[in-house]
C-alpha cells in the first residue's frame, strides 16, 4: 500500500487577492481527486467562489480580510511551521516573494513547486536573475503554463537542472500522476523496508543522472557520488571512506573506477558495473577483478554477448541487460510548425557517428524536395582537443565540412547548433532524428528524438535492430531518404511520430527505473529485456 502524498498549496498570489486563481482551483481539484494524495490549501481571506474539495484540508481563515494578510516573511514562517507539524512531500507556491523566502529555507529544498508565471523578468538585472536561479534551483519542479515559458526558463537559467513541466490550465490526471512520481518516486517492492547506502562511482554521469535523481528521492536509499576525473583517473585519491561506507557500489563505465572498486571491495558489499561500449576496446575491463563483480550491466543484447565472450572469467548469468532510458516528461513537448521538414543529428564526433552518411541522406532527399534541411547539435571537432590531435579525425572532418560548403545541394541546408544540455528543447524543431553511426551499443540520441515525437531513421549499425522500433530502421541511404521524403506529408509524419513515440515508451525512465532499483539488492534475470 503506497503511502499518502502530502501536498501543501499556498494560494497567496502576488497581488494578495482573495480570489483563488483558476489554475490553483483546477490543481487542487485534481490532486484532491486522488485517493493517495492529501491536499492542504493554505490561504488567508475568503474566496466565496471556490469551494474547497471535500477531501482537501484547508487552513484558510475566512474571518481574515485582505488587509490582514501577514507579511511574506511570516507567511513563509507559517508554512515552515505547518511543514514541521506534518512533513509535506511538496509545497506549491504562487507568489515569487514567498518562493524566494522558502528557497532560502534549507528544509524546503527539492520540495518546492514553483508556478513559473510568478517569476519576474530576469533579463533586466543580474541580481534578479540570481534570485530567480536560487528559486528555480531549490525547486523540485517548476510548473509552466506554456512550453515557451518552459523553454525560456531552461535557456535563460542553464545553471538549473531542475525539472520543468508544462502544466496546462486544466491538467489531466496523467500529468498529476507524473508530477507525483517525479517528486516522490514509488519505491519498488524489493526496496521496501530497506535502508541502502549506495555509492555511484564514475566520470561523465550523464547516462545515469536520471536514475540517480530518482534514487536520491527514495527514503530507502542514501546516495553518494564518487566522481572520477576521467575513465582512467579519480579526482585525487580513490575515496576509501566512501567505499567502506557503501552497501552497494555502482561503477558507471567499466574503467579504472571498476578496477579499483573490484580490488577493494569489502565483504558483503554489492558491486555493480555498467559497461557501455567503448570500454571493451580498452584494457581496463580486463583488469577488473571479475570475481568481485556481482552484476555487470550492458545496455543492449549485442554487448551482453560481446562481454560474455571477452570477459570469459565472469559467469555469464552475471552479465545482464538494462537498456538506456529517456525521461518522457522531459522530452514530450509540442513540435514547432514545420518541424516535419527538419532532420536532426545529435553528436557528430568522433567520425564513427558518420556525419557523411547523414549528408548523403540529406542530398538524396533534397534532390527531390529541397525544403528539407539538417540540424546538427554537437560539439565541433576542432573544439575537442584530444580528437583534433588525431590526423584521421581531422582529415575526415575537414573533408566533410568542405563538402557542406561546396556541395550545391547542401548550401544553407546544414546548420550546426551549439552543443548543450537543452536537447529536449532543441528537439521541438526536429521532425526526424537520424542515427548513422558505424558502431553503437545503444545510442540515446534516436531514443530521445523518438520520445520527443520525432520520427527515427536509423541506419543498420550492428545491434540496432531490436533496440528501436522496426519502422525506424532503414537498410541504406536510399531507403532512409525515401522514408524521409514521405514525411513531407504532415499527416504521414504525424502518424509516424505517434508510432515512434509508442515504439520507445518502454524506455521511459519510469519504466526502466524498477530494473535499477531491483538490481541494487538482487541479481537480475540475464535474459530480461523490456
Amino acid at each position, binding site marked *: 500500500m503506497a503511502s499518502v502524498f502530502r501536498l501543501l498549496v499556498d494560494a497567496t498570489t502576488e497581488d494578495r487577492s482573495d480570489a483563488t486563481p483558476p489554475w490553483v482551483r483546477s490543481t487542487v481539484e485534481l490532486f484532491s481527486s486522488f485517493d493517495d494524495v492529501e491536499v492542504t490549501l493554505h490561504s488567508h481571506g475568503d474566496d466565496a467562489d471556490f469551494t474547497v474539495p471535500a477531501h482537501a484540508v484547508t487552513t484558510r481563515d475566512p474571518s481574515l480580510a485582505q488587509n490582514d494578510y501577514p507579511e511574506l516573511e511570516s507567511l513563509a514562517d507559517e508554512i515552515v511551521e505547518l511543514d514541521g507539524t506534518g512533513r509535506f512531500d511538496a509545497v506549491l507556491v504562487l507568489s515569487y516573494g514567498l518562493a524566494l523566502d522558502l528557497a532560502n529555507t534549507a528544509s524546503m529544498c527539492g520540495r518546492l513547486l514553483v508556478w513559473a508565471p510568478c517569476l519576474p523578468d530576469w533579463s533586466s538585472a543580474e541580481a534578479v536573475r540570481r534570485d530567480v536561479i536560487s528559486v528555480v534551483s531549490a525547486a523540485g519542479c517548476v510548473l509552466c503554463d506554456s512550453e515557451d515559458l518552459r523553454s525560456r526558463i531552461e535557456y535563460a537559467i542553464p545553471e538549473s537542472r531542475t525539472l520543468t513541466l508544462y502544466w496546462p490550465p486544466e491538467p489531466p490526471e496523467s500529468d498529476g500522476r507524473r508530477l507525483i512520481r517525479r517528486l516522490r518516486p514509488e519505491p519498488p517492492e524489493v526496496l521496501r523496508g530497506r535502508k541502502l547506502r549506495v555509492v555511484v562511482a564514475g566520470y561523465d554521469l550523464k547516462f545515469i543522472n536520471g536514475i540517480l535523481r530518482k534514487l536520491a528521492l527514495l527514503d530507502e536509499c542514501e546516495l553518494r557520488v564518487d566522481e572520477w576525473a576521467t575513465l582512467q583517473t579519480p579526482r585525487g585519491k580513490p575515496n576509501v571512506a566512501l567505499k567502506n561506507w557503501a552497501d552497494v557500489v555502482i561503477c558507471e563505465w567499466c574503467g579504472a573506477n571498476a578496477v579499483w572498486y573490484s580490488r577493494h571491495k569489502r565483504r558483503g558489499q554489492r558491486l555493480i558495473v555498467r559497461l557501455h561500449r567503448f570500454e571493451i576496446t580498452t584494457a581496463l575491463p580486463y583488469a577488473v577483478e571479475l570475481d568481485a563483480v556481482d552484476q555487470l550491466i550492458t545496455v543492449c543484447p549485442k554487448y551482453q554477448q560481446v562481454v560474455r565472450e571477452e570477459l570469459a572469467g565472469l559467469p555469464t548469468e552475471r552479465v545482464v541487460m538494462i537498456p538506456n532510458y529517456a525521461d518522457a516528461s522531459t522530452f514530450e513537448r509540442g513540435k*514547432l510548425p514545420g518541424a516535419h*521538414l527538419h532532420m536532426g543529428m545529435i553528436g557528430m564526433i568522433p567520425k564513427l557517428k558518420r556525419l557523411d552518411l547523414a549528408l548523403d541522406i540529406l542530398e538524396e532527399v533534397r534532390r527531390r524536395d529541397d525544403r*528539407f*534541411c539538417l540540424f546538427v547539435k554537437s560539439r565541433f571537432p*576542432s*573544439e575537442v582537443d584530444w580528437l*583534433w590531435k588525431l590526423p584521421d579525425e*581531422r582529415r575526415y572532418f575537414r573533408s566533410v565540412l568542405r563538402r557542406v560548403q561546396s556541395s550545391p545541394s547542401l548550401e*544553407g541546408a546544414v546548420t550546426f547548433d551549439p552543443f548543450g544540455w537543452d536537447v529536449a528543447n532543441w528537439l*521541438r524543431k526536429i521532425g526526424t532524428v537520424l542515427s548513422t553511426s558505424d558502431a553503437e551499443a545503444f545510442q540515446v540520441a534516436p531514443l530521445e528524438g523518438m520520445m520527443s515525437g520525432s520520427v527515427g531513421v536509423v541506419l543498420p549499425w550492428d545491434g540496432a535492430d531490436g533496440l528501436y522500433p522496426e519502422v525506424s530502421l532503414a537498410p541504406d541511404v536510399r531507403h532512409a531518404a525515401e522514408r524521409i521524403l514521405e514525411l513531407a506529408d504532415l499527416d504521414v509524419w504525424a502518424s509516424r511520430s505517434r508510432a515512434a513515440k509508442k515504439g520507445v515508451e518502454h524506455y521511459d525512465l519510469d519504466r526502466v527505473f524498477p530494473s535499477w532499483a531491483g538490481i541494487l539488492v538482487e541479481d537480475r534475470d540475464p535474459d530480461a529485456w523490456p
Partner: protein
Amino acid sequence: MGHRMQSERGQPSLQQLREQLGEAEDRVWELETKLRETLHSTSYRLGRNLVLGAKSPRGLWRLPAQLWRLYQGRGTREAATEYATRPAGLFLNYRSLVREREGPQIGLVASRQTVRSLGAAFDVVPLWPHDANEVAHAISPDVVVIESGASMPGQAWSALGTAIEAGLEETLVDLIAVFGRRSIPVLFWWTTPFDRTADLSRVSGRCDFVVADDSVPGVPKATPLSLGVDLAQLQPVRPSARRDATAPVLHLSPYEPDQRVAPATRLVEAALAAGARILYEPGHLHAAEETLWSRDVQSCYQSAAWTTPTTNRLSHRCLAMLGSGVPVFACKEPAEFGEFVTEVPADVSIHDAEACAGKRLDSLGAMAEVLRTIHLTGTVQNRLLAGLRSLGVDTGPSEDRGLGVSIRAGADIEQAVGSIKAQSIRPAEILVDDADMRDRLSATLNSDIPVRPRALGESSRHVLWRDKAWPKTYLHDLLVASEVMGTDCFSDGDGPEMTGAFGTAAPKPWWIEVPVG
C-alpha cells in the same frame, strides 16, 4: 600510377590539390601546436618575463612577483587550448573569407531562396547561424540584409524569434552590433506575415532600417517597429509638381523616445543615399522632439531641415533651403503635407526621387533592384574611390579612416561645423590654412573636434570631380552618403562656403581638394 593524377595539361588534379591542402593544414596544425607548447613552456615564460622586466624600472619592480607566480604555477598548462581550437566558421565558410568581392556586396541572413535570388544580382555572403559571427568580422559588405523569411521552417535560422532558439536571436543582435560598429547599414526585410513572425520585431527594432513588402499582410504601419522605412510606399515626386498628400515618399515609422539617436541619423543618411528627398514622419515624434531632435539631429543637419506638424517652426527655413537645393525632411501628417507642398514656390525644384521611387517590392527582383539602386546612388563616391586608386592611393579599410575637413577663408563656419557633426561615426578633424581661421573655429566649435593647420604636402595630390548627374552636391550629402557607402567623400565647395572634406587614412598620405565650379 602517380602520373595518372596529373591531368593531361600537366595541371595538378583535384585529388592532388586536396592532398596538398591536407598536408599544408596538417603542417599548420603541427606548427600551431608547437607554438602553443612553446608559449606555455616555463622557459619561454621565464625568459619573456626577464626580458620585459629588464626594459624599465617599473618592469624590474614587478619582476619578483611575476617570477613568484611563475614558480607557483609551474607545471600547469594555462590556456592550453588557445591555439588548439579554431572557430567552426573557418572550416565552414572559408570561401566567403578568402574570395575577392565582386561588385556590390550584401551580407545576407535570409532564406535559401532569397540567397539564391539575390546571389544572381549581387555578391552575396550568406550568414548562417553557426558561422555568422566569424564571417561578419571578415567581410565588409555594402549592406546587410536580414530577411524575416530566414526564420521560417526549413531554413537555417528556423525558430528564430521563438523561445526555443533564444540563442539565435542573441547571435543576430550581436551581428547587428558588429556591423553597426563598422557603420555598415543593416536592413530588415519583412517578407513574412507579421502575425507569424511578430517576435522578430525585437530584432528589426535594432536594425538601421526596415523594409516591408506591402504584399505582406499584417506588418503594422505604426507599431511595434521602432524604426523603419516602408519602401513599398515610395512614390515619385516630380519636379515642381503638386504632391499627392496621401502618398508619402518615405515612411519613417514611430520613433521611440528612448531610442538612441544614431539609428535615426543613419536612417536619414541612408534615405539620402538612396536618393530620397522628402521624409514623412507620422507625427509620433513630438514627445521626443525637444530632447532628441533639437539637441542632436537638428544641430547636425544644418544643411537640411525638419518640419513638424505641431510647430512648423522650420518651414520657412525649409522653403529657403529648398530654394537653394538643400534636401528637406518634412515631419508632417499626410493631410498637412499637401498644404506644405502647396507652399513650395512653383520655381522651387524638389529633387526627383529618381533612385528608388515608385518601386514596389512585390518580387525578389524588385528588392534586388532597390538594393542595387541604394548602392549605385553612391556612384559618385565609387568613382572617387576608383580615382584615388588610379592614383595609387591605398584607400585602406573603411573602418580605419577618419575624416578631414578643410575649411578655408570665406567658408560658412557654422554650416561646415554642422556638417562635420552630422556624421558621428568617423573621427573627424578640421584642417585650416591660417591661425585666424583656427581661432574663429575654436570659438565656434566648442567641441572636441581637433583643428590643425594644413601641411603643405597635403595639397600635392588631388582628384578633380564633377558630376553632371548630381550638380548640386553638398558637403553633408557627401558625408552621409560616404558613411552609408563606407567610402571616402568630398565636397565641391559650392556656394559661399569654402570647405572640402576628404577621407583620411591613417597615416594620412594624401588629401583631395576639389576645385570650385
